[in-house]
Each structure stands twice: as structure tokens, then as C-alpha cells.
């Protein structure tokens, strides 16, 4: 018979739309409006999973996002399969496929249950005391075993095919939660049509507790009618946005709140391409938190059996989903709210009785009301244990005398239990906002005490449980958020409130061995918490981490206060003295997709390309990433690997002419009457005497004396300089300059402008460089006397205005042709054509690196690491010696920077010429020294030099310059390589080739 536990009448499900789902091997019928949980319960299915550590059979505990147990694998078809979904939140639809988790081979017979038998060996923190010996077993035994056994659920195996959106919104009032308090707040806040109000609720239907309240009246009408009217009012107002299925999951600075809106998970066939979720970032002028409260379970032996649930959740399944959670229901409670549930359950025609720990005298009007209705109530009784294993079959209860100890126990039969240990206001978002909580002994809860941001809480989330009080509270909060001091009052049926806090149900000694659960998802028992205290953990933060209570995906919504109370009781301290742990986002799990939005795949990072990029791509170049830039790495011809291509390119540059795209180089134009003075202060060397039309290499330090960047400074005019920086350093250098111009020397009249993207730069290098470009040049005399090495001139190339720099990073005579970026490709092609008679060869960044290394030219960030001084790099000559102040000057005299033993730039030639060292390899003097050896330095750059027919390397070595001629040892993958320390310039040390 389908849906044997569906009640004939009632509920908000749509009986006209039956649906068919799958759970493991069974087909399940249900109705539209069901959650996966209510659909399973309607079919009498309680066993839905196996617990995390002990693999105990588990059922559904709750009805909402606080559910710790019923985590299912959800398959929505079309490649969308996701683990660890709470069955209470998954909306059922036709064709939904669900699987239980954490069990093998089946849910009924799970081999993992052996953990339950050896429970005392795997109690809290067991992994801190085990898996230590023997050490060798770690790699091959322990780790593989633990990896297979640990975790929950199976990770998806295919990339997420869905799309996710991001949206930013601003509003005057954000109301979180659309229960009675939140609805009243939203209505009050939006009365003024100019106030933009956003109301969000995590559930599919707004209404919160009103959705399962079939007996209360509000302002003279049934709660359901009041709800309908409230929603209609809000829908009518243009200034209100109501977001359903939207969880506010993070509260950040300055009223910045993140919401996750679920758009299509509830649809059997969403429109293709429709975004699955939308991440909202809301900046709200004021916030009203109406996030409700969570019920606490009770702690007694085997309280985790399938069928043992929360009392209010039973009420929800009966009233809202028309589902009978069982046929013989027992409520176990220390408070009044379970009686409301019992009354509704009895009214639905189900067999229900109540066991209340409180004595008659401690109860309120709920006692008489229930007895009048004919519900058996046993006051002054505790629960010793639940019976049954795959399903609860009964409870062992016992009277509790004045001494507090239980008397003899007796068994009562039942197939469903509703636990109610009181209520915990949901203060997660308040805490995230950095508000301070205060413990209220009357509510036995931490309530919002001091706000830090323009926000206030209303309703159950601040300990108010009476319906009319919640409505009034919400209205007042909403009005205040909109800047008004008066708000409307409501009348409503009285709510049964009040509970007696109990940390663990009184029990006799014999039940100590059984497991009484506190945190269901992480399998933490009362015994574990006591163990933690016994082992010396007193801070709640330590207890949390040692036992993992509150650390599961439910963030302890049903367990935190219970755990806290137990720890306080065990320590003999008051609850506020123990304190709470920190609440962190997300309030409930959020998909990675929601955070990523469109920022994935090709859109993850912007790609920067040069004007020559497409030409290089067509020419078959391989590219490398330099920051966000794509740079041509090498240009392989048919049959060439990288080694062969680079060897050919290097030979071509040194024997003929090579052409290289240097457009990514940082460029800054520094202009103004004080431009030269500014450059004098920002570089180590002086530029006052740099002539118009000349270039000079400059070294830039930070105030601590370490090399920060380097480049070539060219003077275009008395008050105008064009300087270059490293590719990665351009924004940093400009920022550095602006910092000094704006905050240290605001009196200097200087403008610094980034021109990196405005100029394409084409390097033409080699003995035939001049002949290659000469035919294209107008207005510049390329003769050695008029345009020597380190000079620049302005003219035209291939008809395009250009700044022609005679500079070299290769050690060959050559140029860097700067043209406006839009003309970059055209000029590149013109130079290629013009250089064809000389066999002009495109070369990439790998060749560029080899050629400069052969000349001992450093690359900032490769040879330097932020701790090298000019002298370390052998560039001490660039440091001005006079009185002129420059950034970093004072630091160069710091004791540490002039000490002996500093790492200095050297060259290394391996004893075996074909052996190429690894970049980053460490250098030692003697391989027979005991480990750990003293390391003298490391290899910074290492290449095969085609021109020398052997390997070369640059390195930084302690007292390197004094070690010239010494043989040192460099680490390799298999041992050490011997290498001789040499001068770091391997080719043409006197630089004659520059002036060819």
C-alpha cells in the first residue's frame, strides 16, 4: 500500500500532484510539497543512514535545516549528483533519486557497525593516541585505511555542469527569517514606500512556525489566514523583495550579508541554462534577525535510534505534511512545547502519551489541558534508555524521587519518540556580526546582548517564544529599522512555553556503558564530553575540538547548548563561565558553485595578451603564464622539442638576428619639473646628469635596503622620463612611486603614469639587428656615434611613430622598438619581412632567459627574493656614494646588510658539462658532513647554454665572491653535483658585442 503513514486529511502538500521517487532500491510515492524526509516518513521509512563513526542505524531527527542525521546522496539527473543533503531540506519531485550513505554493503547490513561494538576503543580523541607505531605503517597501512574509512558521502566525479549567478543589492532593511516575527518586521519596515526591504527565508514557503500551527489565531483569524494576508500585503508592495529558498549564511562587516538563493533544485526539469543558485551580497542600512530557535534533544542511552525525533518535528510532520511519524508515539519532555505537539497529534487521531521529567508542581497549564484531552501524562519520570536497534520499539522509564535518583524502571512500548529538552535561540548570524551574547538563566540560553552593528534580533532568536510577543517584537524591530518609534500590537492565542533545563536525563549506574548522544552527526556521546574534562580539557574550545562536538555540517544547532551544559555541570561551573564557541559562516552548507559564480574555467582569471599574441599563436608558439600575461615561451619548428627550439633560437640571436615580444614589460612615464629629482630619490643612482636621449640602468630599493625592482630609465626631455620595470613589478613600482609622491614628498611636482599597455615593445637583437631595421627607420641616424648603446631616439618605423631604444638584455647589439600598441603587430610583421634576408628568428621567453643568464644579468624575483642588497648582486657600483638621500640608503648601513657571510651572486659551472642543475637546489661545501648540513645558498637560474656547449647556472652563495675557483656541491634528485664557482658573466665579459 503506498504511503501507509499519510494522514487522510490536512497538511499543506498538494494531493492532486502525486510524485514518484527512489530511495536506495525502493520506489516511493509522495506528493508535491513533500520534503524527502516527509516522503520517506509517509512511507514508513525511518532508517535512512549510518552514523559517521559508529555506523549506528539512524533515522530522521528533525524537520528543517538543523537535521544532523538524515544525510542523503541526491541525484537530480543530468549529471547532478551531490552527497550530504539533509533529507529535511531536499524538496521532493517526480523522478528524484536518493541514496543512503556511509554503509556497505547495504543500509540494513553495514559492516561498519563493528565500530559500534568496539566503541570504547574509538571514543573521543582516539586518533590522538593511536596510529603512532610503527612509523613505517603510516604510509602503507594507516593512511590508506583511514582515507577509505573516513569522510561522509561520495564526492561528485564529474565537473559541476550548472551555472551560478552573483548579485549585489542594497536595501534599507534586510529581514532574515519569514516566521511570525520576521513577517511582522517586514510589514512594519515597508510601510513607508521609500524604504527598500528585503525579506529572506531558507524554506520553500515563507511562514516559519505558522506553517504547522493549525490551532492558533492571530488578530482574530486562523494563523494560516493571517499568513496568507501578510504575504499578500508584502507581495503588493513594490518596495519589498521576498526571497524564498534563500539562506542568509554569513554576516560580515558593516551590514554586509551574504545570501544563498536556491533556484532550480526543486524542479524536475529546470530550463536548460537557468542558473541553479544565486549568491546575493547585500549591503543593508539596518538588519532585523528573526532566525527562530532550535529544539534540544534529551540525553539518554540509545537516544539515537531511528524513530526517536524532536517533539516539535513530530508536530510539523503531522500538521504540515499530514504524515504520521508512528502509530504509538511517546513524548519525552522537560518543557511545555511538547504538549502542544501532543495535543495536535492526538487531534489527528494518533495514539500519544507524555513522559515529563518535571513534577506536577513544576508544570504549567499544559498539564491540565493534555489530561483533559485524554492524553496520558507521567510526570516526575526519566527515560533510562530507548529500546530497539533498527527502529525504536520502546522506552525504559523510571520515576525520579526527591533525591534525584531514578527508581525501578519499566518498559513502555512505542514506535516513535518525540524529545523536547527546551529551546536554543538561533544566534549564529548575530554572533557572526560580532555581537556579544549574554547568558539568560531563565531561558537557559545565550541571547543577543550587545549589538556591534546596526542590527537587532526579534522573536524566538532572542528568547521570546510566545506568539503574540513574537509578532509585537518583530513589528517593533521592523519599525525601528525603518526609523519609527511606534509599532502595531497583535493579539494571538497563548503559546505553551517554559522548560526545566536538564543536561542529561537522570539514570542509574548500570546504563553507563550505553551510548547517550549529544552530537548526532559526529557521534559524540555524553561519555566523550566527560572524558574530555577528565583528560584536562576545560576550555569549551578545546572540548569542542577534542570531541568534535558541534563541528559537523549542522554546526551543533541541536547539540551545542546540550554539550555546553554537560561540560559546565561536569566542571562544576556556571554555564556563562564556560562560554560558547565561535559561530562561523556558513550557517548551513553552501555549494562551491555559489561562491565561484561565473569565475571559473576561462573566466577564473583575466588573460592578458600582447598585440603580437595572435601572430605568435599562428606561428606555433608555446605560451607560458607570467602573472596574468600569456607570453610566447618558444617557437618550435616541425619536429623540435623545447630544448631543440631554444638551442636554435639562442644560436640565431648571437649569430644573426632575433626578434622578441617584450610588450609585457612595465613602463612608466615620469614627468614634471621635479622628475629628475624624484628619480634621484627613488633609485639608488642619480639621474640629474642623464642627458636627453640617453638611458641608464636603475636599481630600486625598498626602505629596508633590499632590491625591489630594476629597469632602464630613458630621458626624453629635461622634465620627462620613460622608464621600464619587470613585467610582474609594474603595478608595484607605480604604487611605490605614488606612495612617496603623495605621502612623503607631496611638494615635488611630478606625475607618474602607467604606459605599459600603451606601447608595444619589439626587441630586435643580434649582430644583424641594425641591418634588419634600418630600411624601415625614418628620422633616426642609426650610426654607432649618434645612437650608441644605452641611447634612445624618436622617429618612425614602417611609418609609425616610435621610441627607439638602443638597449640589450641579451648582450648582443640591439634595439627595443616602442610603438603605440595598436600598431604592434603591423610593425612586428614589417620587421620580420625586413629581417628575412638575415634569417630573422622569433624567440620566446625561455631563450631570453638563457641569453641574459649567459651575460650574468639578474632578474628581480629570480636572483633576488626580497632580501638581497645591491652589493649582494655585485651591483654595489650603482649605489650613490654622496650625500644624496634615496629610498633604502640608510638601511644599506644596517649591520646585517654589511656583515660578512652574506649570499652573493656567482656563476656555477658543473664538473660534468652536460649536467644541468636544478633551480632552487641547495649548495654545500662538503657532502660527507652530517645531516643537517649548513647550506651556503641556492641555485637561482640554470640553463643549457647552446652558445657555450655546456650548462651554466647563477647562484647566490655565502661569501660567493671570495669563493671563486672553489668547487662546491649542489643537491640533485639523486645526490650531489660538483660545480666550480666562477664569475657570473659567461660570454663576452668586456661587452664588445654590444657595440657591434
Amino acid at each position, binding site marked *: 500500500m503506498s504511503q501507509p503513514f499519510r494522514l487522510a486529511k490536512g497538511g499543506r502538500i498538494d494531493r492532486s500532484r502525486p510524485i514518484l521517487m527512489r530511495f536506495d532500491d525502493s520506489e516511493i510515492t509522495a506528493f508535491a510539497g513533500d520534503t524527502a524526509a516527509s516522503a520517506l516518513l509517509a512511507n514508513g521509512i525511518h532508517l535512512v543512514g549510518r552514523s559517521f563513526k559508529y555506523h549506528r542505524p539512524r533515522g530522521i531527527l528533525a524537520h528543517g535545516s538543523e537535521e544532523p542525521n538524515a544525510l542523503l546522496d541526491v541525484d537530480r539527473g543530468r549529471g547532478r549528483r551531490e552527497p550530504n543533503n539533509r533529507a529535511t531540506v531536499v524538496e521532493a519531485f517526480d523522478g528524484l533519486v536518493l541514496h543512503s550513505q556511509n554503509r556497505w554493503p547495504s543500509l540494513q547490513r553495514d559492516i561498519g557497525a563493528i565500530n559500534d561494538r568496539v566503541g570504547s576503543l574509538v571514543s573521543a580523541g582516539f586518533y590522538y593516541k593511536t596510529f603512532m607505531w610503527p612509523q613505517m605503517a603510516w604510509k602503507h597501512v594507516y593512511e590508506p585505511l583511514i582515507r577509505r574509512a573516513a569522510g561522509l558521502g561520495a564526492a561528485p566525479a564529474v565537473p559541476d555542469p550548472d551555472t551560478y549567478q552573483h548579485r549585489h543589492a542594497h536595501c534599507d532593511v534586510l529581514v532574515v527569517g519569514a516566521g511570525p516575527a520576521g513577517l511582522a518586521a517586514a510589514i512594519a519596515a515597508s510601510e513607508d514606500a521609500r524604504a527598500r526591504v528585503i525579506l529572506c527565508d531558507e524554506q520553500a514557503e515563507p511562514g516559519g512556525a505558522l506553517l504547522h500551527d493549525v490551532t492558533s489565531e492571530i488578530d482574530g483569524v486562523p494563523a494560516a489566514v493571517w499568513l496568507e494576508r501578510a504575504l499578500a500585503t508584502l507581495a503588493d508592495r513594490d518596495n519589498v523583495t521576498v526571497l524564498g529558498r534563500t539562506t542568509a549564511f554569513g554576516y*560580515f*562587516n*558593516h*551590514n*554586509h550579508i551574504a545570501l544563498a538563493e536556491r533556484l532550480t533544485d526543486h524542479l524536475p526539469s529546470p530550463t536548460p541554462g537557468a542558473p541553479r543558485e544565486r549568491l546575493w*551580497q547585500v*549591503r543593508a542600512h539596518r538588519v532585523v534577525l528573526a532566525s527562530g530557535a532550535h529544539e534540544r534533544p534529551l540525553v539518554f542511552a540509545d537516544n539515537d535510534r531511528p524513530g526517536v525525533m524532536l517533539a516539535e518535528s513530530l508536530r510539523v510532520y503531522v500538521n504540515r505534511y499530514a504524515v504520521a511519524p508512528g502509530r504509538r508515539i511517546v513524548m519525552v519532555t522537560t518543557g511545555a512545547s511538547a504538549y502542544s505537539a501532543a495535543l495536535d497529534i492526538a487531534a489527528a487521531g494518533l495514539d500519544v502519551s507524555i513522559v515529563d521529567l518535571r513534577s506536577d508542581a513544576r508544570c504549567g497549564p499544559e498539564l491540565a489541558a493534555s489530561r483533559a484531552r485524554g492524553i496520558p501524562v507521567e510526570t516526575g519520570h526519566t527515560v533510562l534508555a530507548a529500546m530497539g536497534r533498527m527502529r525504536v520499539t520502546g522506552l525504559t522509564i523510571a520515576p525520579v524521587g526527591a533525591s534525584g535518583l531514578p527508581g525501578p524502571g519499566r518498559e513502555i512500548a512505542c514506535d516513535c519518540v518525540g524529545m523536547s529538552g527546551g529551546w536554543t535561540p538561533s544566534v549564529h548570524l548575530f554572533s557572526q556580526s*560580532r555581537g556579544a551574547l549574554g547568558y539568560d538563566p531563565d531561558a537557559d540560553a545565550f541571547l543577543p546582548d550587545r549589538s*556591534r552593528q546596526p542590527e537587532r534580533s526579534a522573536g524566538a532568536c532572542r528568547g521570546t517564544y510566545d506568539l503574540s510577543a513574537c509578532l509585537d517584537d518583530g513589528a517593533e524591530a521592523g519599525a525601528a529599522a525603518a526609523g519609527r518609534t511606534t509599532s502595531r500590537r497583535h493579539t494571538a492565542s497563548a503559546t505553551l512555553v517554559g522548560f526545566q533545563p536538564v543536561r542529561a536525563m537522570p539514570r542509574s549506574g548500570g546504563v553507563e556503558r550505553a551510548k547517550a548522544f549529544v552530537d548526532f552527526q559526529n557521534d559524540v556521546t555524553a561519555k566523550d564530553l566527560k572524558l574530555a574534562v577528565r583528560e584536562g580539557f576545560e576550555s569549551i574550545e578545546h572540548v569542542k575540538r577534542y570531541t568534535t562536538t558541534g563541528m559537523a555540517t549542522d554546526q551543533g544547532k541541536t547539540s551545542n547548548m546540550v554539550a555546553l551544559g554537560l561540560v559546565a555541570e561536569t566542571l562544576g561551573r556556571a554555564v556563562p563561565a564556560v562560554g560558547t564557541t565561535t559561530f562561523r559562516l556558513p550557517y548551513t552548507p553552501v555549494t562551491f558553485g555559489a561562491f565561484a559564480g561565473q569565475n571559473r574555467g576561462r573566466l577564473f582569471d583575466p588573460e592578458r595578451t600582447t598585440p603580437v599574441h595572435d601572430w605568435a599563436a599562428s606561428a606555433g608558439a608555446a605560451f607560458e603564464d607570467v602573472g596574468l600575461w600569456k607570453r610566447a615561451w618558444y617557437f618550435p619548428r616541425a619536429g623540435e622539442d623545447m630544448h631543440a627550439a631554444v638551442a636554435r633560437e639562442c644560436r640565431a640571436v648571437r649569430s644573426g638576428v632575433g626578434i622578441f615580444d617584450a610588450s609585457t614589460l612595465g613602463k612608466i612615464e615620469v614627468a614634471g619639473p621635479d622628475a629628475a629629482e624624484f628619480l634621484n630619490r627613488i633609485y639608488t643612482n642619480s639621474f640629474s646628469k642623464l642627458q636627453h636621449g640617453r638611458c641608464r640602468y636603475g636599481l630600486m630599493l625598498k*626602505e*629596508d635596503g633590499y632590491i625591489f625592482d630594476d629597469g632602464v630609465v630613458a630621458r626624453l626631455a629635461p622634465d620627462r622620463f620613460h622608464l621600464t620595470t619587470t613585467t610582474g613589478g609594474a603595478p608595484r613600482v607605480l*604604487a611605490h612611486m*605614488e*606612495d612617496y609622491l*603623495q*605621502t*612623503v614628498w*607631496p611638494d615635488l611636482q611630478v606625475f607618474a603614469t602607467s604606459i605599459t599597455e600603451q606601447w608595444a615593445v619589439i626587441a630586435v637583437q643580434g649582430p644583424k639587428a641594425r641591418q634588419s631595421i634600418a630600411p624601415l627607420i625614418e628620422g633616426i641616424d642609426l650610426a654607432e656615434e649618434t645612437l650608441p648603446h644605452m641611447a634612445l631616439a624618436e622617429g618612425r618605423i614602417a611609418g609609425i611613430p616610435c621610441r627607439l631604444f638602443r638597449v640589450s638584455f641579451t648582450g648582443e647589439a640591439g634595439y627595443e622598438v616602442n610603438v603605440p600598441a595598436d600598431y604592434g603587430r603591423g610593425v612586428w610583421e614589417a620587421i620580420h619581412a625586413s629581417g628575412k634576408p638575415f634569417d630573422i628568428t622569433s624567440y620566446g621567453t625561455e631563450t631570453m632567459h638563457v641569453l641574459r643568464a649567459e651575460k650574468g644579468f639578474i632578474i628581480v624575483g629570480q636572483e633576488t627574493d626580497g632580501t638581497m642588497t645591491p652589493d649582494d648582486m655585485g651591483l654595489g657600483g650603482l649605489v650613490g656614494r654622496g650625500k644624496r*638621500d634615496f629610498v633604502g*640608503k*640608510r*638601511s644599506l*648601513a*644596517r*649591520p646585517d646588510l654589511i656583515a660578512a657571510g652574506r649570499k652573493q651572486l656567482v656563476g656555477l659551472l658543473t664538473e660534468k658539462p652536460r649536467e644541468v642543475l636544478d633551480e632552487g637546489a641547495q649548495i654545500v661545501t662538503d657532502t660527507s658532513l652530517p645531516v643537517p648540513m649548513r647550506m651556503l645558498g641556492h641555485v637561482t637560474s640554470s640553463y643549457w647554454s647552446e652558445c657555450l656547449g655546456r650548462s651554466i647556472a647563477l647562484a647566490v652563495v655565502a661569501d660567493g665572491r671570495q669563493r671563486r675557483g672553489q668547487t662546491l656541491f649542489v643537491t640533485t634528485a639523486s645526490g650531489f653535483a660538483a660545480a666550480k664557482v666562477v664569475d657570473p658573466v659567461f660570454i663576452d665579459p668586456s661587452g664588445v658585442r654590444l657595440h657591434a
Partner: protein
Amino acid sequence: MLLITCPYCGPRPEIEFRCGGEAHIARPADAEALSDAAWADYLFYRTNPKGRHAERWIHQHGCQRWFNAVRDTASDAFVATYRMGEKRPPGTEGEP
């Protein structure tokens, strides 16, 4: 995401700015006269208070100007923002 009031552009989200550390630390005019310890103090030592902190910010993705701010390091509340070169506003010192 902090909401920072740039003195030139008004309130803008934190992502447009970069923080430059403690404010009102003047680069010593005569560094040569300073001992190594005093110079190290200028380079490396900062007040690091719990509470109100005068610091420098630059509106990097906006007007690109540096300015000063007083921010409470415990609550992240911005007490004041003011132009580079101006003095810390009275009443923004010490404990809130």
C-alpha cells in the same frame, strides 16, 4: 567587506582599497643621524593597538589617492577618514 568612506569619493566597498599600515609615521628627515636601533624602530615597529588605530589607505580602484583613517581594530568600525597630510581628528584617540 568593509564600507570605507574615501574623503574624495564617498562610501565605497573595501575591495576598491588597499591598506598601507599605521599612519602618521614620518620618514625621518635626517636618517644618517639615527642609530641603527632608531632606524629599525622606524622600519619595523608599529603600535598594533586593540582599539582605535590611525592608518593609511589608498583608494586603488577609484581615485587612487592616499588618505588617513581611524579604525577600531576590534570592531572594524571606521571612526573617521581624513586627507593625507591632515592631523588625526580630535576625539579619535585611545579607547572608544
